[in-house]
């Protein structure tokens, strides 16, 4: 089993969600994050003093999938989240030892 983590632009969330659905993924966990990267931020002035917003609001998705759908999922996210502009984000995949569905106690693939 794998955990696919993706950092995307907030306004791509809906598209990505749809893409995942078409890829047969029913479950996703999402959180608001702040991203620091190439995209950089912007400088503003408040009461005449400059200050820098050095982060960009991003969304992080966590998707648990079984090994043979990982690539499909990654591709789905890449295609849906890509705008081609800097700051589109990253995806990384890690291995999961065990998954449990709390409600039923099911484990493994059945738990997803």
């Amino acid at each position, binding site marked *: 089993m794998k955990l696919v983590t993706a950092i995307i632009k907030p306004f791509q969330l809906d598209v990505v969600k749809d893409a995942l659905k078409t890829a047969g993924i029913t479950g996703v966990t999402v959180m608001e994050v702040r991203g620091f990267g190439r995209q950089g931020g912007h400088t503003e002035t*408040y009461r005449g003093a400059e200050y820098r917003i050095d982060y960009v609001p991003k969304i992080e998705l966590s998707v648990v999938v079984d090994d043979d759908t990982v690539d499909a999922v990654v591709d789905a996210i890449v295609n849906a989240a890509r705008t081609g502009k800097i700051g589109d984000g990253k995806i990384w995949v890690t291995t999961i030892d065990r998954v449990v569905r709390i409600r039923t106690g099911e484990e493994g693939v059945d738990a997803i």
Partner: protein
Amino acid sequence: MRKRALRLTLAAVAGLGTVALFPNIANAQDADPVTVLGQQLNLLWVVIGAILVIFMQAGFALVETGFCRAKHAAHVVSTNFAIFGLGFIAFFLVGFPLAFGGFSTSLIGLDAPVGEPLLGSGNWVFLFQGGWALSTGTITPALLGFFLYMVAFMDTVATIPTGSMAERWKWGSFVVWGLFCGGIYYPLFAAWTWGGGWLAKTWDSMSLGAGYVDFAGSGVVHAVGGAAALAGAIVIGARIGKFDKDGTPRAIPGHHIPMAMLGTFILLFGWFGFNAASTFAATDVQFATVATNTAIAGAFGAIVAMLWITKRSGKPDPGMMANGMLGGLVAITAPCAFVAPWAAAVIGCIAGVLVIESVFFVERKLKLDDPVGAISVHGVCGTFGVIAVGIFSNGSYGAGWNGAPTEGIEGVIKGDWGQLGAQVLGVVVIWTVLFGVAFAFFKGQDAISKAMGKGGIRSTPDDETVGLDYPEMGVEAYPEFVKH
């Protein structure tokens, strides 16, 4: 006008107490019914004005809280809330008598005067007495209405330093300031001016115009409050992280812009009571001129500030727009009854620029940290307002002001420099004597607190870092909202 206004009012309300208390008697001492009705209307106007000014406390609370950070919001809003009662109680017990005790004699116009001078006499009165806790002497509805109006002005002064000292002021230390301001600090300058003390008599003692003239308090309220705000900011020091090692100021954006904007609107609303009801009489239709001049200065102040800050830093900073309107309102407060609409517009424009430049000066040159711009808005623009009386007054109003034998207040534009002299003297007194008193108070309080091992008037770095809400108030302003 104060004095004249009061004499009027007093005439206006002579025996009103009686009217209310023993109707028959009232009828007995048959005052002209039209006069009596006019007096009743005037008292109503004063009370309505007081209600509006009291509501300004909400405006200050919102402006200061909105321009501070979320982690201190419960503390900042609470200081602005508690200051109302703290200043009120001290003013009720001793402040009012010290400032106006002597005055109320004539105000009540009955055989039994409430008070008289406590310190000094003739042209040189420094404090008054009588009517302690509104319980000694004859207390009439008219006196109570006057008290209500005056206590509201005092509370405005008391709440100004809560802005410049926000986010780092220990609750306990703050409480003492509230009592000190209501009991002693505000009454001092009030006694010397509106109370009829020595500064109101400089027309006679130094033949300066009509003496110190300040229609609704650019100086008596705002500059005096601004002086305390400056003193407090110096003594308490800048917030952690406000300045880089090399002293460059860092921006610390307010956490709630709409809140600050609402507060500004509430202040504009209350300001009409602050200025227009200072005629103390609806039978003096100048209240309409005053109200309109007030609105004009506020409008020009806001828009000029918007243009100026855009020119200075590229965008129409909402905080500066708000400060600009407040600066215009503060500046017109002293001259509002004496100047023409065009002058009100000019005064508003100047204040709009002044408030921004002084914010820069305070932060960049003085290296002081004033989270909400209280020093600039109240101190600087208030000072400008007092001076403006000596410049723009057109002589059409203010006959007999301070009891001076004048046809109307005249400024430099009428070729008269004497009034400007009286105003400058007042300003000098504020920035030397009053500032000194405030500075001594904060310094002394800090020293005593440290001597007592209480660590001074400033909260600990840890409390300041995590936010004063939990350590000081026991609750967070927004316990459920996730914050960066």
